């Protein structure tokens, strides 16, 4: 890569390093792997820089990060002997006792835990929308899915968080 090209490439990607790391972190939930993933994505993005048509590099770079995260997740699940399906499977909401949670942890911790309990494909759209502030169209680019999928995953993710958090809340006040 020539120096001026590296400059343009860095302008398109470096301002979005936090966004990249945040996405990888929420998607994979692995602190150590997230750094590797973002570095790998940065390298891959350089190879495909010519496919970037200018403008805001965020959605473009995030889609590369997302692919790298997905590849990592798939590898993990292969090793664990479970095939990763992108379809959402219900993990159920009965995994933890809300009352105990509510007493022990602060509000932030409850919200964090509720989000962590979502399956990755719901977690990532929530993170992209609520933490990153991306539009539906941008999210569609990042997760390489139609807008309708973005819309339904966000709805489902929020419904689950709503159920989960309202039970925690009841648990605390009673």
């Amino acid at each position, binding site marked *: 890569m*020539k120096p001026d090209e590296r400059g343009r*490439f860095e302008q398109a990607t470096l301002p979005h390093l*936090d966004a990249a790391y945040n996405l990888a*972190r929420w998607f994979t939930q692995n602190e150590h792997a997230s750094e590797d993933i973002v570095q790998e994505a940065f390298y891959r993005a350089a190879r495909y820089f010519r496919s970037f048509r200018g403008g805001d590099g965020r959605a473009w770079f995030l889609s590369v990060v997302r692919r790298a995260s997905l590849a990592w997740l798939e590898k993990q699940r292969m090793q664990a002997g479970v095939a990763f399906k992108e379809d959402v499977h219900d993990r159920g909401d009965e995994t933890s006792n809300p009352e105990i949670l509510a007493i022990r942890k602060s509000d932030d911790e409850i*919200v964090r835990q509720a989000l962590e309990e979502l399956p990755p494909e719901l977690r990532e759209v929530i993170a992209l929308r609520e933490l990153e502030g991306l539009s539906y169209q941008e999210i569609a680019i990042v997760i390489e899915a139609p807008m309708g999928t973005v819309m339904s995953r966000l709805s489902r993710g929020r419904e689950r*968080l709503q159920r989960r958090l309202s039970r925690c809340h009841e648990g605390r006040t009673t």
Partner: protein
Amino acid sequence: MNCREVRQLLSPYSDGELTPDQDAKVEQHLLECEECSQQEKSLQSVRMAISSAALYYEAPASLRQRIEATRLPIDRGGFRISLQWVTAAAGVFLLVGASAALGMLWPEQKPTADDELAHLIVANHMRSMQVDHLTDKESHESQTLLSWFQKKIGFSPLIPDLSQVGYELTGGRLDYLPDHPVAGLVYNRGSHVVNIFTWTANSFEDKPLTRLVCQGFRLRHWQRLGMSYWVVSDLNDQESDKFAKVYERYSRKILPLRLRSSDVFKIP
């Protein structure tokens, strides 16, 4: 709009992602329906809880350092492409010379229709290798090329993305055979240029893969679903087969469903 429909739209409503018409309908319903209105408030409070909690993971300093120290790969583009063309063009002249010499040593066989076509295809391929004539439309994106071909030639060839299997889409070109225009697709494998020519065939009959060598270039030809395909490159036999196979396999993925046939493309 009934409650069930409104519930489904509450999430995009809170994001401001509905059409103005839908937005107005949901808003009206919320004014009239206490239950849905409660639901909407509850959704808002969940969203507030998420955005106000400290959930954002900022990139650690160690990552920034690693990124800055990352040695970036060399992008295939700009100056390097023109160098490739020069090398490729030089290769072409050598091969032409070599095959002319061989032609003098070996007695000529009676050419078939395919052989004649192969000569024309190779001539097109060689012309394309001359500097600055590889593509009329340079693009890595199938969609861009599809609409370009549609405008220029009146049909859309199948342009699968083969980057995962090592062939980079470089662009498209308009070429001519004696009686009709053909779509030329250009893929790169390292420094090798693969041209694939395709046009609407005279018959809807499928023809299996045929191998030809012409002036030192390997050609692969087949016909499928009413389209004729000719692949030409300086790849070796095995790799030429592989490209034809991969092109077919990936094309199948982007074919409209109704056109997909169940038989499997086999290298004979």
